[in-house]
């Protein structure tokens, strides 16, 4: 792997109270690529994803051991507010705020201290364009975001994440609540975005991982029900020539 590393974990262990949810995860996520995280339910994919923007900390009694690095910097040494600006996130269920489309996108920049109207206008337009939703909503920016369709809401959430100019976008099954055509649009969008962002996406959908990602990480539960990383590599290799028999079993549908 000669790619530049954007995100990295070294021997990452994560506990909910006494329960170990992640077991010794070490991985390098390359910059400006789409990396898919796949595996059966409950194997810690989302927990792994949330380690990079420290969202796990919002749950009481979570303990993390090992290292999580962003550009080689320990994320626990960064301020979490600054970290989350640099590492954006799109959630499983579209979760626009009950505000207007404009205010949804402007929310992040405003939180970071931008109040100049022209500046906000420019950010909103640029973000909505980047998220491929500008043409659909440009005439009704004052409309409540909750009146958009599910697929539009999810693209709005992507725009909202882009508005604070992150370097990484974490996507937690962003298309699982969407219909096939909306899913396809999100995948196309990801391809456009990877030129500027590093994308890490959790997905249940094998085809989606195979179609849309450059690299794939396969997670499973070990004997103690803790999530472990079985295999990481270029997507093509994982899907055509996996090194680990468990990966092969999972991908060929023998369990999971």
């Amino acid at each position, binding site marked *: 792997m000669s790619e530049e590393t954007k995100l990295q974990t070294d021997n990452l262990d994560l506990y909910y109270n006494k329960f170990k949810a992640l077991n010794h995860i070490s991985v390098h996520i390359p910059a400006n690529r789409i990396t898919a995280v796949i595996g059966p339910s409950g194997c810690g994919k989302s927990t792994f994803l949330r380690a990079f923007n420290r969202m796990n900390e919002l749950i009481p009694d979570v303990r993390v051991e090992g290292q999580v690095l962003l550009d080689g910097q320990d994320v626990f040494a960064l*301020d979490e507010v*600054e970290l989350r600006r640099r590492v954006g996130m799109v959630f499983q269920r579209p979760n626009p705020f009950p505000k207007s489309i404009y205010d949804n996108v402007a929310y992040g920049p405003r939180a970071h*201290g*931008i109040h100049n109207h022209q*500046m906000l206008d420019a950010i909103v337009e640029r973000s909505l364009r980047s998220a491929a939703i500008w043409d659909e909503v440009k005439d009704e920016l004052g409309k409540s975001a909750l009146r958009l369709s599910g697929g539009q809401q999810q693209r709005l959430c992507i725009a909202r994440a882009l508005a604070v*100019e992150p370097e990484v976008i974490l996507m937690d099954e962003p298309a699982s609540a969407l219909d096939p055509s909306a899913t396809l649009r999100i995948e196309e969008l990801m391809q456009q975005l990877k030129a500027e962002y590093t994308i890490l996406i959790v997905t249940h959908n094998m085809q989606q991982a195979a179609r849309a990602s450059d690299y794939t990480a396969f997670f499973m539960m070990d004997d103690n029900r803790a999530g472990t990383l079985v295999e990481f590599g270029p997507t093509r290799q994982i899907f055509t020539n996996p090194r680990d028999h468990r990966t092969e079993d999972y991908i060929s549908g023998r369990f999971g």
Partner: protein
Amino acid sequence: MTTVIHTVGQTRNTSGQVKSCSTSLAHVTSSQYLRDKSNLKSRKLTQQSAFALMWLAGSVAVAVLVAIVGYVVWLGAKVITPDFILQPPRGGMAGDGGISYTLLTTFYLVVLTVGIATPLGVAAATYLVEYAGAIRKHRRLWSRLIGIARLGVETLAGVPSIIFGLFGYALFVSALHFGFSLLSATLAGACLILPVIIRTTEEALRAVPNSYREGGLALGATKWQTIWGIVLPTAAPGIITSIVLSVGRVLGETAVFYVTLGGSYRMPTSIMSSGRTLALHVFYLATETHAFDKAMGTAAILVLAIILINLVINLLARRLNRMMKG
């Protein structure tokens, strides 16, 4: 965009240069803003000050409670002796004597009021939840009447207690010539707590899962057998909570009884006698005889009773929670 960001990195140190790339002015400066960590400190400071204020509010609330309860119980404890509790009040400007009759009057009034309002309230709530729901679909007039009934109960639950007192005075004290008496006070008090019982019981009944009802009916039980055997027992902790709540309400209520029970400190000999509850006694001692020490003693007993009632309610709520989960 990456290149633009790159430029920003370079122009940052040499201020003023930013203006030159006018086409992406907004972008450049916003990028600068977003990468600038200097406002992070002020945002955190705002958060800290705001949180400090919230903590202050919470502390004030607890402190006020401790101050009021502490003050009343501390001063009250000085007069609370076996004599104070067992001796009858003797009136007079110093509020001589104890509170034995007052305690008894309070007990009578609580038992009578809750005894009248509970069966009526629980029955009404049972009808509204278990029977009225089924009517809805095919009889429009009837369902509209039920809607009005609900609205009436909701409205009364929010009406000031003095209104109930006024009603009790007009109907029972004057129109029906019951005078200032336990009877007038009981009936007015029952009206006061009726909406409380109906509403709380309705909630408890609604919390019973429908599968319980279906289970009973599927076994061939009649509707009433199902309600009596399954639904009401399941809702019992909630119904008991509503009764305990009403006991607290009657104990603490003053306005209604001030205008229906009169203020005699003597022992009520019949249902037509006037009398004083603990709360009324506190009011009279404080405002008319200025016997503040005795007022504090009576108030302290009242407060301790309320604390006890709150404990019981919390215990019931915990049990209810456990039942709904398990």
